[in-house]
């Protein structure tokens, strides 16, 4: 019968299509967590992923840390108040709303960085077979985990130390101690030299052993572990360079998102320092940090592909100076301080080129000079808020404040979704 014939022709393609309608279509654009976390290659790739997370784009931890810190401590000035969240940061005090995108971005990306590191730490031991590869991957993960927790502790009074739903918060002291512990773990892993199999894929832009020591010095100083800080700082090879690299595709975020636009923020004249802290006009660092190049870039933010140091040699010297000064070894402290003041051979070109310190040889005066030099030497490194507190500079509740916040409020995204554990916001 013709009917049957027509029907069969009609139904045949249909049946084929019924069979063909696959509903488990894999994603060709991205890998899944299962794939990545169960492969050595994936875990090594995540090391670069952590660098990307921390440094790439105008929402990154690096950009938000430098911007937030710079606006709060008057290093930077907003050029167009149309950038409302940056303007809030500049105005400081209670203008800094918990919903402010600068602090939300800082919080979010540092927490995600810790989460990334945590994933590697959880999976690498069971997945990576080669011992050398495993220890190298773990060392990087510990390092970034420490960087995340340590940086969070510079801006918030309390910090979650582990990644989990309804995460509990710990004091910033506990966070800095955790950062120091993680760096110790990294150091242990580094007893086995970095595997070429890993460095071939992640590069040697970060000299990991020295970077681990440098961060250890930084966080120990913040904790007041003066001897440990000094020891770690002394162990850093000052000729070594550790940097976050950039290129045209992943550009230096401070340069690309801010300085080159001439419409977001810019540096303040004389580092925003005045009075006793005002820099010597002959200070070579004025030219290094404050004089724009043809593209309005400055300091470590002169071009899309300008690298940003993980730490500066000057920081290590100034840590030693500060430790000595706090230990009342004023003369030795001045000796270290002079290394910075008279420096002309800095690996990164941060050279004050000034005469040696000639001020009062009392502890307070030397500490103030150390603080001033930290403000200049470590300009736009994101450390000034912590320094300003540690050196007890005039805060938001004092006359002529040098910083407009002590700590940041906890971002709305955290409080809304982790209401039971998020601590009360600091008043300023």
């Amino acid at each position: 019968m013709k009917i049957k014939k027509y029907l069969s022709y009609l139904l045949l393609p249909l049946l084929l299509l019924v069979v063909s309608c696959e509903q488990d279509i894999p994603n060709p654009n991205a890998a899944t967590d299962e794939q990545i976390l169960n492969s050595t290659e994936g875990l090594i790739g995540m090391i670069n992923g952590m660098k990307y997370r921390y440094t790439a784009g105008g929402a990154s931890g690096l950009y938000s840390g430098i911007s937030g810190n710079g606006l709060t401590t008057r290093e930077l000035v907003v050029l167009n108040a149309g950038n409302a969240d940056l303007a809030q940061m500049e105005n400081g005090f209670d203008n800094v709303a918990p919903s402010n995108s600068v602090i939300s971005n800082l919080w979010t990306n540092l927490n995600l960085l810790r989460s990334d590191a945590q994933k590697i730490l959880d999976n690498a031991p069971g997945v990576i077979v080669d011992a050398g590869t495993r220890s190298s991957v773990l060392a990087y993960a510990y390092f970034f985990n420490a960087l995340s927790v340590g940086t969070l502790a510079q801006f918030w009074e309390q910090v979650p130390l582990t990644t989990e739903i309804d995460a509990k918060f710990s004091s910033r002291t506990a966070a800095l101690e955790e950062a120091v512990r993680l760096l110790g773990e990294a150091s242990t892993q580094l007893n086995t030299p970095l595997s070429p199999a890993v460095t071939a894929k992640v590069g040697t832009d970060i000299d990991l052993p020295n970077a681990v020591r440098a961060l250890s010095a930084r966080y120990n100083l913040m904790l007041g572990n003066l001897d440990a800080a000094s020891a770690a700082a002394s162990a850093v090879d000052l000729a070594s360079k550790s940097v976050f690299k950039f290129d045209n595709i992943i550009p230096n975020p401070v340069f690309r998102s801010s300085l080159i636009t001439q419409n977001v923020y810019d540096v303040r004249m004389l580092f925003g320092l005045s009075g006793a802290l005002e820099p010597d006009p002959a200070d070579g660092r004025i030219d290094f940090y404050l004089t724009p190049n043809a593209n309005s870039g400055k300091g470590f933010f002169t071009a899309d592909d300008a690298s940003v140091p993980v730490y500066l040699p000057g920081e290590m010297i100034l840590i030693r100076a500060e430790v000595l000064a706090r230990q009342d070894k004023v003369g030795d402290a001045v000796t270290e301080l002079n290394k910075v003041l008279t420096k002309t051979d800095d690996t990164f070109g941060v050279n004050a080129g000034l005469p040696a310190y000639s001020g009062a040889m009392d502890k307070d005066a030397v500490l103030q000079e150390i603080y001033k030099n930290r403000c200049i030497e470590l300009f736009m490194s994101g450390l000034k808020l912590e320094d300003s507190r540690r050196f007890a500079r005039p805060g938001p509740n004092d006359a002529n404040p040098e910083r407009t916040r002590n700590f940041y409020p906890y971002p709305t995204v955290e409080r809304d979704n982790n209401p039971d554990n998020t601590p009360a916001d600091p008043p300023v």
Partner: protein
Amino acid sequence: MIIKGLLNRSWQRILFFVALIGLLPLLAAAQTVPIVSGTVTDDLGDPLVGAAVILKGIPTGTVTDLDGAYSIALPSGTTTAELIFSYLGYSSRTERVDLSNSNKVQLDVQLQSDVTRLDEVVVTGVSSATSRKQLGNAISTVDAADLENTGTGNVLGALSGKVMGALITQNSGDPGGGVSIRLRGTSTINGSSDPLYIVDGVIVDNSSQNVINLNADAQGTGFAAGQNRLIDINPHDIERIEVINGAAAAAIYGSLASNGVVQIFTKKGAAGKPQINFSTSISVSDLRQRLDFNMDPMRFGYPGSPRLFTAGDRLTMIADLRSAADKAANPGTGVSALGGALVENQYPVTRYDYQDNIFQTALGTDNYLSIAGGTESTKYYGSISYSKNEGIIRNTDFQKYAAKLRVDQKLSEWARMSIGLNYVNSSSQDMPNGNNFFSPISTMIIIDNVWDITERDEVGNLLHVEPVRMNPLSVIEGFDITQNTNRFIGDLQFSLFPVKGLTLKYILGLDVYSLRGNTYQPRVPYTGVSAAFFPDGYVAVANSNIFKVNNDFTANYSWDISDDFKSTTTAGVSIWYDRSDFSSAEGRDLAPFVTTLAAATNLFAAPRESISEATINGYFLQESIGFKDFLFLTLAGRIDGSSRFGEDERNQFYPKASASLVLSELDFWKNASIANNWNTLKLRFSYGQAGNLTGIGAFTRFTNYATLGYLGRSAIVPSSSLGNPGIRPEQQTEIEFGADLSFLKNRLGLSVTYYTQEITDLLLDRNLSPSSGGASIIENIGEMSNKGVELMLNINPVRTKDFNWEVGVAYNTFQNEVRNIGGGRAGILLRGGGGTQSAIDGQPLGVFFGVQYARNPDGSLLLRPVPTADGGTVMLPQVARGDDVTGELQYDADGQPSGTPVRTILGDPNPDWTGSVLNEFRYKRFGLRVLFDAVWGFDIWNWNSITSNNVGASPLSEQELRGEVPRGWVAAIGGFIGPRIQEQHVEDGSFIKLREIGFTYNAGKIGNVFSNLTISLMGRNLVSFDDYTGYDPETNSAGQSSKVRGDDFGNVPIPRTFQLGLNASF
């Protein structure tokens, strides 16, 4: 891949089948058959052209010719038959003919006009042809006549004011500008709110693909700006459009249907000699309303350089950015940077109105040629068209070539097939969209109007304007941005009638297109332009390829249970597949002369490729029972599964139930005296569920780890947006009930509908606590509801042979509410970039949530003293303050606001109601058509006023220069002395527009050349009655976005258009 392989194989099957059909000898055996012929006229005795004559029970039919004559051949041996005569806008009639005595019978029929159109046959939402009378839901139909001479080539724009319950917004005045349709309001936040579009059975794509604004943040803030692809459909080809508004009617379309369904039917051929139709028109468009600019010949500050090119020459209205040297020369006039006391000094300047440099009078043309004809067994309709419209922004246009062919072939008495082929090439010359500062309108509004933008240097290069910004003419003259779409829409349909009452139907629909966008921005010849605007030049190419295929098989069986009970059972299977891929490459820092990627020396963005692939399988069953002509009940259900859903969520069930009760068909009504004046009363009720999956990406169910090139190495970055393995579509449950009434011999018809929609499982991109290891996840949380009334009144007050007057009035109310999405008082912010559109529990979607003026109890502004440069104070406005968590306003001991700025709901972009009044007059050969369209009770966020105030180009700035408001007023509002007062920029957008006005003259038959000739002159959007200070409140710089509405940021206003047209039939 498996799918592809199998698809290919099934393709081969289909092609094979098609080839086979072609070889089959077509039925042609001539024999003596009974023939019924006659004419069909209307109640005034005029012939009805194109009235349908159908033989009941058997799929045989014809249409009347230009004289209203028809002739229908019946199967041989027929002795009695029932013929159904129908024509749109008329009550249909069924006539019994007796052929026992003669093989040739003459039957003339007169049809009665009926404004209620209850006999109109519709298919949308019911899958088989059903008269409107039987429907439990409201349905709108729009005929070809309503789509002609509308002054727009965009079919969706042409629907404005013609569809019940629809809010139709032309989001941009570009010639290819996007149009969005919201049926009964918005029903999603994350997905698309546009209805499902079906053209001749093909599910067509209506997305807005961004291929030309990769370097702007135009799409990065919840936007869907630019063209939407229904622009490719040619209004001339359309025969009829059916619109159903929500889940109650659309349940059988499952997971695609909660926004309603718009089904478009294109023209088909009819048996008879070839009919050739040619239409052509020319149009002129221009800017309907100009903005006012500051024309005071003074400016605050001290000129820093002769052509005002120092940093201190910027933003002098709101800031004092002068150099130290300048200040040394003019001491005591304020501090540097923002927030300090402002300079009071003024200096003379020349002010310009840049609108003359930006806008043009735009010409357009639209040409269409069709040929249709055929025999009883083979019918064809072919058309070809060309249109080109310039935009009112200089150097923009949109042009379209289209060709269409439809062939209907009768294979036997019980088998028919139809093939439709459509090809469209759309291309446009564009400018950057709004929402960035280098679109033509933004460049004009973001600079003070004191630079002569036409001035050139000795070699002809344009000169700088305000430092940081672009000269608007650099954009207009330099940018070369184009889009080009090649699109094929095709369908293959088989209808089989193997036994009486059984219809089997198979539709294969294909929608395939590729869209390419090219962007070239030359190097800017002057310095000082922000790097964000690419002064070193920019070039990009992007390609978007869409492939959609739908297979729909339905079996429909109708039988008479008894004389009184009739049953129709429909079962269907749908298999839909879509794939899209997008790729792009960008570069900057251009070499000279070359305008493609080859010019780029800095490939600053990695090339991108993204593939999306998804399937939907659906099965549905529907049972309709009719009792006499009086009660109709329908029950239906659909089960849907899509690859987008979580693995355990692939059995979504969507039920439907509806009833129609035609009281006027009851004998007591027919016999009552009331029946003379009250002809019809139909009550209807409908309940249904449908879904929306557009908020779910093809791979939302996975936690994705991105791999990306990182400094020559590979980086793997876990997505901060976590996967949701349990994701499922949004569910809409809709109940509607209503009544259709007609009076005075069907000369007055009234249709009323009340609906309520509850949307559950709303898809939201919810924030996570970052400490949990993710930043966001798309989840099914929250609810939304829509409620409203739809009212349509059709009157035919005068109906004579010479003069006919018809009135159509539509009125629709909308009430939207979002619930249980969390986020506290502030809810969830929907628009990035400093916008305030928010989703807040208990409020309509997208309300503006921002800071307000501090006010005294009497409503006047509560001003505060602000120090001036000379040591005095000035009283300026300020924001209300208090506790932003609770919303409580607080004041200090002096009565001044204290605390943090308190946000409040400043406005709502959703209208309270829309309405339209259409008057159509015909006097002999003259016709006049006037359509007024109103959208009422909604607000607009006027970004343009924010920017033009702050740069000093606005009327408010002029007032400040003239001392009519104190110095610093603009800065205080703009956020440069205290936080920005956002309330200032929310304006009432309510408008009534003269949407269409048209005169036609129908010359009728002219000699032997023209069988009909019509000349028309029409105007579109000629007048708008509104209080909006911007260009046009009908706008949205977020384009077709569901969640960001009422946004006016550098967007092109809708022009007014005059069109002169000629339509000739041969």
